[in-house]
């Protein structure tokens, strides 16, 4: 084992880890923003309201993330209409392609987690809100969504960690994320064991960071639960 190359690569790997974290954070936030209305539509009793989010969810849960990334990165440039549109400055850049693919992918999984949580909110709590004269919009804002977020939190932290590891695929479209940096250094030094091990340890570190953040959030948001 060449410890020297491992230590020397750390600054570059740390920079890659920052990009990884940024990809996860940005697409996580956008994904959540998309997931909330999708989950709300998904629990609607009306079929036509459900149709669009369901199509989205089934497509992005049913296809590999790598294929989705390739579709956005390689696929979109195939059309003249897209190349001449206002979207092209973004779609021609690997960074935004990764953000778009990750956002759409995580929004599908998150919407399903939220749907389950929304359906787990006891009917009686919603009835209690109706009985005091709350409007449907107010019930969504004050009761259903806040309750669903709390119920969904443990499952959602799992989704964020999966996304962290899925983000390694960004390296396949030239991005210098943690995996991308490791691969580039390996191409120069031929020390795959050292570099992938170092990258793997950094992923573990990031995972602990994210889990710690969620633990704090859960402690704060779920303090109403009876201690066991």
């Amino acid at each position, binding site marked *: 084992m060449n410890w020297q190359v491992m230590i020397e690569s750390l600054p570059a790997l740390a920079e890659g880890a920052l990009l990884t974290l940024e990809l996860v954070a940005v697409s996580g936030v956008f994904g959540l923003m998309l997931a909330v209305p999708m989950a709300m539509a998904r629990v609607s009793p009306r079929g036509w309201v459900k149709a669009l989010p369901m199509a989205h969810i089934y497509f992005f849960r049913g296809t590999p993330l790598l294929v989705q990334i390739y579709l956005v990165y390689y696929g979109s440039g195939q059309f003249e209409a897209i190349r001449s549109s206002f979207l092209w400055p973004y779609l021609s850049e690997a960074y935004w392609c990764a953000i778009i693919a990750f956002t759409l992918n995580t929004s599908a999984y998150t919407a399903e987690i939220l749907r389950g949580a929304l359906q787990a909110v*006891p009917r*009686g*709590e919603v*009835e*209690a*809100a*109706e*009985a*005091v*004269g*709350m*409007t*449907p919009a*107010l019930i969504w804002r*004050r*009761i259903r969504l*806040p*309750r669903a977020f*709390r119920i969904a939190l443990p499952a959602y932290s799992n989704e964020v960690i999966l996304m962290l590891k899925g983000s390694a695929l960004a390296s396949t479209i030239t991005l210098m994320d943690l995996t991308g940096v490791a691969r580039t250094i390996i191409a120069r030094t031929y020390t795959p064991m050292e570099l992938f091990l170092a990258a793997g340890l950094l992923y573990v570190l990031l995972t602990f960071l994210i889990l710690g953040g969620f633990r704090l959030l859960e402690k704060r*948001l779920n*303090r*109403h*639960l*009876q201690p066991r």
Partner: protein
Amino acid sequence: MEETAIELRGIHKRFGDLEVIKGIDLTARRGEVVALIGASGSGKSTLLRCVNLLERPDAGQILFNGESIDLRAGRDGTLRPAHHDQITRVRAGIGFVFQNFNLWPHMNVLENVIEAPIHVSGLSRRQAVAEAEHLLEKVGLGDKKNAYPAFLSGGQQQRAAIARTLAMKPAVILFDEPTSALDPELVGEVLGVIRQLAEEGRTLLIVTHEMRFARDVAHRVVFLDAGRIEEQGPPSEVFGRPRSERCRAFLATHLSEDEGVTLS
């Protein structure tokens, strides 16, 4: 003539093939305490839930303080409120206390009580809190206002739920078996609060299995059987000289079971 607070006309309700309510007329005058009794499945809870349209009746008319609630038939044939504004306004004037309390678990007791006054009635937070603290004092939960529902006993949760209902200053309060989910030793504290409300001259509709409570507190007892009103009158008559055979049989089993319950 005394004013009617709640008037139900010709209410019908079916769940699939099962007709639960087969045409019921019921009025509650202002200040009247009406107890609805009857065997399980007689339709009394469903009837109560029809009053503020938590359950959608198939036919009938509902009047609150003389105002008829506009209903229109939905695709499934049940009647639903025609105007959101009207039903939310009417519901704000009708309190509902559930068998399972249904407090919002992510809010503490005080937040549960001030939620609707602030967001539905538009009260300032300061005023809502002042009123809520007064109400919590009244139901004996002054020291529990910062506790979350999961940390309270069933009796405390139900008293908090009653405070939440009272915070909207409802003209009528509906109680749906308010003590049925409670341990026997906790029943008395909740009945005590309801009795206090009855003595204040409030209009109450109570679905209950507590026969002695109904006899002591209600002005009128309504006995439901198989979706119809079988018998009604002052408690002394219904309990003392029941006219119908079914009412007599029902009371024979339920009054004897009831002996052990103590009231506060």
